[in-house]
């Protein structure tokens, strides 16, 4: 039986077991929308801006581990989606974006709502396709899902001209994909894994540094088992939070530009470093030259060969799926007669505890003006550390990362790589739809939240009861902080003037709004917002926080990891 291209699209999505498609209709995708109307295999979520469609699909993927799907029209639909696509790309999130395109005969003629979507998105997708023939459509969509989800995951865009959605052909959905040009290596080299095991056992000052690859590769369990087996300290990158239980004593906190003193010092001074699913990026190790000053041997496990020896030379590269490689490593370590050097390890832990005793995350708990850190701490307490937490970008993001202790993977959703302001609310939507019964909190700021505020409307329509924790300091806080430190306190354009009344704004969208102005009121407000009475409602909590609060510790750009600025030094 023959189907139109549009029917094939919806059938492919059904075959893939897609639950939600986040999208926005328009001329080039009307045939597809007509088929969406007629089917009941998946739900369509109408966002208010295409950027949010991709963010929500991205978040759905982060929270569930499945591939997210977004659908946008040609031209501005595609260009609006680009920020979302680039965000997913930088954090290696599997998303399939279907974009409409003008009819094949009109391509290249500057047709209405025409844009070269494949060209524009090329640098920020894992791969993309333009489908020129309806007979290629099903196989291309199959490939898109396969490429997005395997190897190092990432977004894949499929651009579909309008005439292709109208043409008819037989529908056969392929069972599998075979591509001679794409075969990611999953099994680590066993000789290298042996070397890694040996090196780990020889360590006097070991350190485990785990990134987003552990979360994406579903290897949190393996990472925890390995660390427990060896009793070695662990740090997570911003993207890796939740990959190791944050409340565990072996966890030193996040590392990097705003990492803890103990994590950064241990990272700098270790003699054997096990890097798992992390990429030594500039926000994590600071200056590579400074990092290289200390002698250490590095083992690096990553599914992407190009992440290895990119910024830092490593001694034992292992390309493969982190879960599989860690499993093998654990097996070898368990079978080995050798054990870690206990005396050396004790000395190392004593040193680490000394670093930890600096209590680098301390802040003024007596303050009457609300301290943002306090709000996050209370949020953690009240949600019992078990919420899905999204953030936007800036100071509040760092406080969320520092003070919300994630014990489980896929609970922390933020734009780590691209640093996209505006992701918080659509991320919360995606997470809530993936886990309808879970508690979802969006930690944001008054500047970031305004970048996708229109999604309050989507939340109303679909009854998405996320809780928004707005840390409102009337500044683009991180910009203000840099201006204070490095630009002589000249706060150029970082003050957020003419803010809306967020309570009224939330109410006008049909939600619950709260304004909290004193430290003493924080706990009660959070308790109310997360109470069963408001479980079905979106609550927008507008916390008026200290305008001058800064994020510490801080490693200035280009400086070394151990050259941190601590709160007490100012």
């Amino acid at each position, binding site marked *: 039986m023959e189907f139109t291209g549009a029917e094939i699209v919806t059938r492919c999505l059904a075959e893939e077991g897609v639950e939600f498609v986040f999208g926005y209709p328009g001329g080039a995708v009307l045939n597809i929308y007509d088929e969406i109307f007629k089917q009941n295999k998946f739900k369509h979520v109408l966002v208010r801006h295409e950027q949010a469609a991709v963010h929500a699909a991205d978040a759905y993927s982060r929270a569930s581990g499945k591939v997210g799907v977004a659908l946008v029209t040609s031209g501005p639909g595609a260009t609006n989606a680009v920020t979302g696509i680039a965000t997913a790309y930088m954090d290696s999130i599997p998303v399939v974006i279907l974009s409409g395109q003008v009819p094949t005969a009109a391509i290249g003629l500057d047709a209405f709502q025409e844009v070269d979507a*494949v060209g524009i998105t*090329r640098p920020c997708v894992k791969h993309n396709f333009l489908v020129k023939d309806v007979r290629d459509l099903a196989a291309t969509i199959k490939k898109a899902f396969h490429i997005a989800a395997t190897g190092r995951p990432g977004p894949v865009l499929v651009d579909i001209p309008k005439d292709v959605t109208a043409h008819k052909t037989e529908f056969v959905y392929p069972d599998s994909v075979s591509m001679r*040009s794409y075969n990611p290596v999953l099994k680590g080299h066993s000789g290298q894994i042996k070397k890694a095991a040996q090196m780990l056992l020889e360590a006097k000052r070991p350190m485990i540094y785990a990134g987003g690859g552990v979360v994406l590769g579903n290897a949190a369990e393996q990472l925890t088992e390995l660390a427990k087996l060896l009793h070695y300290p662990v740090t997570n990158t911003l993207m890796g939070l939740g990959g190791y239980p944050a409340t565990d004593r072996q966890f030193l906190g996040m590392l990097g530009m705003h990492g803890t003193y103990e994590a950064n010092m241990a990272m700098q001074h270790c003699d054997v470093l096990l890097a798992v699913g992390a990429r030594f990026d500039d926000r994590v190790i600071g200056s590579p030259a400074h990092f290289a000053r200390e002698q250490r041997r590095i083992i690096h496990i990553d599914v992407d060969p190009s992440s290895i020896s*990119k910024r830092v030379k490593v001694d034992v590269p292992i390309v493969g799926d982190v879960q599989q490689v860690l499993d093998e490593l654990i097996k070898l370590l368990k079978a080995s007669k050798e054990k870690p050097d206990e005396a050396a390890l004790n000395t190392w832990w004593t040193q680490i505890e000394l670093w930890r005793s600096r209590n680098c995350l301390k802040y003024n708990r007596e303050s009457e003006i609300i301290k943002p850190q306090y709000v996050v701490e209370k949020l953690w307490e009240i949600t019992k550390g078990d919420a899905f937490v999204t953030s936007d970008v800036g100071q509040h993001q760092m406080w969320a990362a520092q003070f919300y202790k994630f014990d489980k993977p896929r609970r922390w959703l933020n734009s780590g790589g691209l640093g996209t302001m505006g992701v918080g609310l659509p991320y919360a939507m995606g997470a809530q739809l993936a886990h309808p019964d879970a508690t979802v909190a969006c930690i944001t700021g008054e500047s970031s939240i305004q970048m996708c505020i229109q999604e309050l409307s989507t939340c109303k329509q679909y009854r998405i009861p996320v809780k928004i924790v707005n840390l409102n300091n009337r500044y683009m806080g991180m910009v203000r902080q840099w201006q204070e430190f490095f630009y002589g306190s000249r706060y150029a354009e970082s003050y957020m003037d003419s803010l809306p009344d967020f309570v009224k704004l939330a109410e006008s969208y049909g939600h619950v709004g709260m304004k909290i102005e004193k430290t003493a009121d924080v706990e009660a407000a959070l308790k109310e917002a997360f109470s069963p009475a408001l479980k079905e409602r979106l609550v927008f909590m507008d916390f008026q926080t200290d305008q001058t609060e800064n994020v510490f510790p801080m490693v200035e750009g280009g400086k070394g990891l151990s050259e941190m600025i601590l709160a007490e030094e100012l």
Partner: protein
Amino acid sequence: MMSSRHIISLLMENESGALSRVAGLFSARGYNIESLTVAPTEDATLSRMTIVTVGSEDVIEQIIKQLNKLVDVVKVLDLTEGSHIERELMLVKVRAAGKEREELKRMADIFRGRVIDVADLTYTIELTGTGTKLDAFLQAIDESAILETVRTGASGIGRGDRILKV
């Protein structure tokens, strides 16, 4: 770190946009391209590309990894890692009037070039060889005689049983 010249050969799916993926990768990551040639192979579904680039060992390693990461790329080989042959084709149009004609014909012969177009006032000379040989020819003839040059960029192939094939 020492930079050196590398000739990277690759096979990729012969699909529209494949070239722009490679070119885009080089520009986005700030890698050099000295020359780039591309054409289909005996298997029409595959294109063969030769890229001449300059970089340190670390950069070349990254280039090869990044090229391998492109979904359309089937195989990548750094030809300069082993023995190989490199050829480039150049067409040069020179002013050739009066006694210059004899001299230019002689130079072309010395460099094993051929005159492939003769007009009243010009010759077009075809020359193949390594890039340095072509440079040498251009230096050997009177600079003011050169009216136009067109070069293909290098193509390369491994010697003996060094074969890049799917």
